[in-house]
């Protein structure tokens, strides 16, 4: 565009100490001063950059994120764990034998890790899935064939779910074998049982979502049991006497209908993707909190001999 001629289009140079009186020589001096100034700024910037790269932990940015120094001192190591929201469920130190793999088998921790991968892959799956009878099955086909990494995503979610069920059961087995449910951890065992049930329910509600024959019949078989609930199911003992029909019993409540259909799909979806994950996460938080509050992992504790049993306190 020709209408901007001369200096009009550019901003005036900011630092021009000798205010020019309008001739050519004055202009040349200004330019030199600006260049020198810019060079000085550049050297400073390079210096600062070098400093930051050499010792990033000295920068304000770093300090603001991590809050404490991370050097090799015991104090820093402890603070590094305690002042981090994700790690602070851990104490700063643990019994040296408690880190032995053979005691806990790492099962609870790995269960939790698999749960996190499931939340992650599940969220990604939700971008492609509509909980509607018309498109649900097609969405899965689409995921399997067209979505980039969709197949891997779906496989990881599926096998992760199976893995989690296996791991929860093994974790429970370990906790039983080590007697870790005994005083003072009784209540955490109860929380654990609830987590086991929630894990199974998560897996079960997810089974229906592909809307294929496998899921459909599995859920039909499963929810047909609810029909037989004593008192509350129309096929159960004393159900008819309580006025239960296929249209008002517990099974109807679970499915949102008398057969596994679009309402059941929507209900399974909401339980699977929203309600149960929230409830399960809440219980997991309680579970971990209680592990800490009950004095950390129960062992490996020194063995107690039969002759050392104390008399029980009478209430």
């Amino acid at each position, binding site marked *: 565009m020709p209408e901007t001629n001369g200096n009009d289009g550019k901003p005036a140079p900011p630092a021009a100490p000798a205010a020019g009186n309008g001739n050519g020589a004055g202009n040349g001096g200004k330019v030199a001063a600006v260049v020198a100034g810019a060079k000085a700024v550049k050297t400073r910037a390079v210096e600062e950059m070098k400093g930051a790269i050499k010792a990033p932990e000295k920068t304000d940015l770093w300090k603001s994120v991590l809050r404490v120094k991370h050097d090799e001192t015991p104090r820093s*190591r402890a603070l*590094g*764990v305690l002042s981090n929201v994700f*790690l602070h469920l851990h104490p*700063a130190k*643990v*019994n*040296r034998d408690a880190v032995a793999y053979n005691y806990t*088998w*790492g099962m609870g921790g790995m269960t939790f*890790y*698999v749960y996190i*991968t499931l939340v992650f892959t599940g969220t990604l799956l939700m971008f492609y899935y509509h909980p509607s009878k018309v498109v649900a*099955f097609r969405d*899965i086909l689409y995921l*399997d064939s067209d979505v980039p990494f969709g197949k*891997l995503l779906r*496989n990881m*979610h*599926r*096998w*992760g779910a*199976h893995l989690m*069920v*296996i791991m929860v059961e093994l974790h429970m*087995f370990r906790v*039983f*074998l*080590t*007697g870790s449910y005994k005083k003072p951890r009784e*209540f955490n*065992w109860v929380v654990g*049982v609830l987590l086991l*049930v929630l894990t*199974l329910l998560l897996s*079960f509600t997810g089974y229906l979502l592909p*809307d*294929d*024959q*496998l899921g459909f*019949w*599995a859920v039909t078989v*499963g929810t*047909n*049991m609810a029909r*037989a609930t004593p008192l509350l*199911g129309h*096929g*159960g003992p*004393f159900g008819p006497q309580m006025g239960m029909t296929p249209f008002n019993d517990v099974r109807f409540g679970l499915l949102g209908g008398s057969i*596994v259909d679009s309402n059941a799909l929507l209900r399974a979806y909401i339980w699977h993707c929203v309600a149960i994950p929230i409830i399960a996460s809440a219980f997991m938080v309680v579970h971990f909190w209680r592990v800490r509050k009950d004095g950390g992992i*129960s*062992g*490996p*504790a020194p*063995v*107690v*001999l*039969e002759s050392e049993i104390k008399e*029980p306190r009478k209430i």
Partner: protein
Amino acid sequence: MDLHQLWTIVSTPDNVPIVLLLFVVPFYAWYGLRQAFANDRLIAQLEGNPEMAKTHHRKIQPFKAGWTREVHVWPYLLRIEFLAAIIVTVILMVWSITLNAPLEEPSNPTLTMNPSKAPWYFLGLQEMLVYFDPWIAGVVMPSLIIVGLMVIPYIDANPLGNGYYTYKQRKFSILTFIFGFIVLWVSMIVIGTLIRGPGWMWFWPGTTWDHNRLIFEVNRDLPDLFGIAGRAGKIIFGAVVVGAYFLAAAVLIHKLITKTAFNRKIYARMSVLQYVTMQVFLIIMLSLPVKILARQLFRIKYVWVTPWFNI
């Protein structure tokens, strides 16, 4: 021998977890019990040698005087967690790359799958349907399993074995749990997955699933065996038999609980409430194998027949 059928069953994607279960459950049972026996040997040693009991650190883990009792979580625990996370990720990735999640035909209410199976972790309950009516197998038993698990800490009066593996000090509870978890829960899952075929019939691994097979089982009700007719008669008879079972099982369990001197010591610590709760759950748990035997040996369908429910 139909290897093709066997391969089809074992390699069905959703059956792979059970094949995995077949390996990991025995492995971890062995892994835990091995440490239990090692601890038991240590306990025996300490009991025989009071001097040693005073000075020994009382663990099977290695120990040297002067070692610190505690270690920093960072790095000693976190690096293990990090490593475990990586290993689990790799396993899950490899599994997901090599094996595809199943997807059958679109759901079709008019086309029943045969066999139609619940997800594998509920197959123990579905297997129970062979022996009990749905209201027991599908509703009452699951609820009792959940509540029964929850009460374990409150009825176990044995203070020993808290925080270390041991078998000797907790024989009764360990055997009971292994019976419930491995013998009843896991093995019924395995049966439901690998053995039950069309019509929920029993097909040994390696035999062909014959969709036309019919089995004529003449299952009889116990009252009929005794020639008891009439509604009231059957109700009363059934109640008596079930009552008798409860009594017999209670006596048997009581004998087991008070068998050894150590068990009697623990028994003496139990409150009445603890004892009754424990009895009720153990009796009901035992009713499953008893009913299985009654069916397999005597072809008995129901023992208690009423107009409202059958047991």
